[in-house]
């Protein structure tokens, strides 16, 4: 079964309604679940056990909330990248989008005189969020244009885009941080709903929507066909290029949204915002069972991939690993996690 957030309850219900004809019985349906999608769940449980042993602080709600809060921005990039990977493409520029989109929005919104950063003041400040999202959408659309209309290599095109946008970011901000964050950004980044940060809820909802779209919407399902065999998808009447283009634009949009949450949460845009994230994004997606060749993987898997990586970092911090060794361990952990998920799922990663 390939549903993303497994529609098991609904299916079982339907099966029961139909009188459980033959292989619709819950037991045999259980066999059809792709257990590999859940292969990281035990890993997460083990990590939590280790965390509990390492430090009593680990299981406090404060700590766990900070883990999910820190996961939220990364997970949005992973969500976007996962959709793009499933339809057989990749977009490296997401990590620059998370920085440049808020910067451009603030540049257009902020006053030209007051504050340390001189903006253009072209738009009212309420438009910061829509502008930011629009920038992300446009970047994704340009990537789509390069890949689908000009048919250039997507890897290099988005690598170029990554570098170019990073440069634009530094150029606009003159290499400095912007601290005059619009109130709307700040609210989304800082607000707390029902005892957890708003960003976390938003992420969960977006993942749920994405998962539902992949499971139950015809255009969502078509991503798997496009990634699995674009020619077959075309022969079946799927508008391959159009849908791929939309997915790339959505990827940019999600990255821009991650930028809003990140900026709001820290109250500033650093010149290096998002720098180096793309490796984490790919690592989380692949660990979570998404194929780099397209056509395979689920958003639930991707989400567990993000959580796994973040939990490891958290446990390390609590365990008192010196900060200077963080990068070394981070890389090592990605490799270890990759190997674990390869054998836990029993599927080749490609």
């Amino acid at each position, binding site marked *: 079964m390939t549903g993303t957030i497994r529609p098991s309850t609904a299916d079982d219900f339907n099966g029961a309604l139909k009188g459980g004809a033959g292989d619709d019985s819950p037991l045999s349906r259980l066999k059809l679940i792709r257990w590999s999608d859940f292969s990281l769940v035990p890993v997460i449980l083990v990590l939590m056990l280790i965390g509990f042993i390492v430090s009593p602080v680990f299981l406090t709600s404060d700590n766990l909330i900070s883990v999910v809060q820190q996961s939220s921005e990364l997970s949005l990039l992973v969500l976007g990248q996962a959709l793009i990977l499933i339809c057989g493409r990749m977009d490296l520029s997401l990590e620059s989008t998370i920085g440049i989109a808020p910067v451009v929005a603030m540049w257009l919104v902020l006053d030209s005189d007051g504050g340390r950063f001189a903006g253009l003041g072209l738009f009212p400040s309420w438009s910061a969020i829509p502008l930011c999202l629009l920038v992300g959408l446009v970047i994704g659309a340009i990537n789509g244009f390069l890949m689908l209309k000009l048919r250039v290599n997507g890897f290099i095109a988005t690598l170029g885009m990554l570098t170019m946008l990073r440069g634009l970011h530094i150029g606009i901000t003159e290499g400095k941080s912007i601290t005059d964050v619009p109130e709307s950004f700040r609210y989304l980044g800082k607000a707390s709903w029902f005892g957890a940060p708003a960003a976390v809820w938003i992420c969960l909802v977006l993942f749920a929507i994405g998962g539902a779209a992949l499971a*139950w*919407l015809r255009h969502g399902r078509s991503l798997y066909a496009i990634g699995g065999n674009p*020619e*077959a*998808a*075309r*022969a*079946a009447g*799927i508008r391959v290029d159009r849908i791929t283009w939309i997915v790339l634009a959505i990827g940019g949009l999600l990255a821009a949204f991650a930028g809003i949450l990140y900026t709001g949460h820290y109250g500033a845009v650093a010149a290096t915002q998002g720098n180096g994230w793309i490796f984490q994004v790919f690592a989380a997606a692949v660990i979570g069972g998404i194929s780099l060749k397209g*056509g395979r993987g689920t958003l639930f898997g991707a989400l567990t991939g993000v959580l796994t990586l973040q939990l490891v970092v958290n446990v390390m911090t609590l365990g008192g690993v010196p900060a200077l060794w963080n990068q070394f361990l981070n890389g090592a952990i990605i490799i270890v996690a990759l190997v674990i998920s390869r054998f836990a799922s029993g599927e080749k990663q490609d």
Partner: protein
Amino acid sequence: MDQAPPPAVQAEGVVKRFGPTVALDGVKLTVQPGESHALVGRNGAGKSTLVSVLTGLHKADAGTVTFGGEPAPAFGDTTAWQSKVACVYQKSMVVPDLTVAENLFLNRFDEKSRWISWGRLRKRAEQLLADYGVQVDPNTRARDLAVEQRQFVEIARALSFGARLIILDEPTAQLDARGIGRLFDKLRELQDQGVAFLFISHHLQEVYELCTAVTVYRDARHVMTAPVADVTKTELVAAMTGEKSAGATAWHAAGTATPPDASAEPILRTEGLTLEGRFEPLDLQVHPGEVLGLAGSAASGNTALGEVLAGMRKADGGTVRVHGKDVRSGSVPHALDAGIGYIPEDRHDQGLVLERSVAENATLTVTDQLGPWGTVLPSRTREFARGMIESLDIKTQGPEQPVSGLSGGNQQKVVVARALAREPSVLVAVRPTAGVDVKSKDSLLGVVRRVADEGNAAVVVSDELDDLRVCDRVLALFHGRVVATFASGWSDGELVAAMEGVGERE
């Protein structure tokens, strides 16, 4: 030399199990030197497993294999296996971007020197190709070779390792008639030099053309071995299917249904339809209840015509009309909406998303009908797929099984299911029975016929005579032009002659 030489390969009592499934159940096979031996059987009969055992890819659980009287090399000793036997697969086993010379001597460029001497390599390649009379320039890149030339190169490479037994797995699947002719000529030549061939094919006619002996497997067991001359086609089919067949080619349009109504308004009509360099302006009319055959080799342009009808390619001129309405050219969604269903030529290229389930593949064209507001409800998808599985008799563990796990014939049925899902009023089928076993073939062609008998139109694009037998009318294409029209009841000879352009030149 009084004694007959030992057989090129002799397998006795070979057993191979994969978990609970018995893939080979005590089978035997003997191929004499210089013999072309056919191995036939339906999908799942154990042919591929035997090939794996004979080429050292799998270790047999029991039984003996000898090559030229000597016991088979130890399992895992690849070099030793290479010197005994080689298999030319359907899939290309050459590196497309390297030259022929490099492919021939890949990883054994030069024994004496650490450095590759390109000049010497080229000379050795020339020598090797000349030895076996293969006319291929060693400097061409492998990707530029025709399919049969690529096969010659693979055979020459195998022979240069010392192998005297070559296994050919469906070698003619991607060849047109001309290529097949060249391949067979070459094989006969090599046979005279003492090379033995094990020929695996679904195409019984070729077995009769090329082979001297035939072995039939069914359900992992050996059924019979006999000289080809002593078995009739009917007996062979009966041995393969295990049932008394009413002749392999039971499908013939005549008498299967009420004749199509030529006075009725045609369902499919093309006017001046053309694609530069593929086919010249073409007027077609297909009436309700009619199956139209477009016969021709790969180069005749009939495949391109099928693709244009299905919207996969944009025509350079002319119109396609279904029920009198224009269909926008070059757009599959428009073609689908107009009621054109499409069975593509190659199920791996355009037909299937191999890693996805049967249900998903079968419903790919109807995702808009499986739930409200653009949703695709899993329950309805399954239900729909189950109906298809039943009506087309697809052998699968269930709608959720990935299509990659199905046999060739059943994969093709999934492609057909996808084409039929929208209940098309025009079915375009391009080589619908390529690489499927005899029984699936009959049922697939039966489906095409049934679509037409229900009052729709069908177009079969193929060079397979069996495919064309279901047609009420056959147009033979040669170099993009219709050279002859046949009503049902044509003889094999005249149609083949027309497809080959015989009489066209004069």
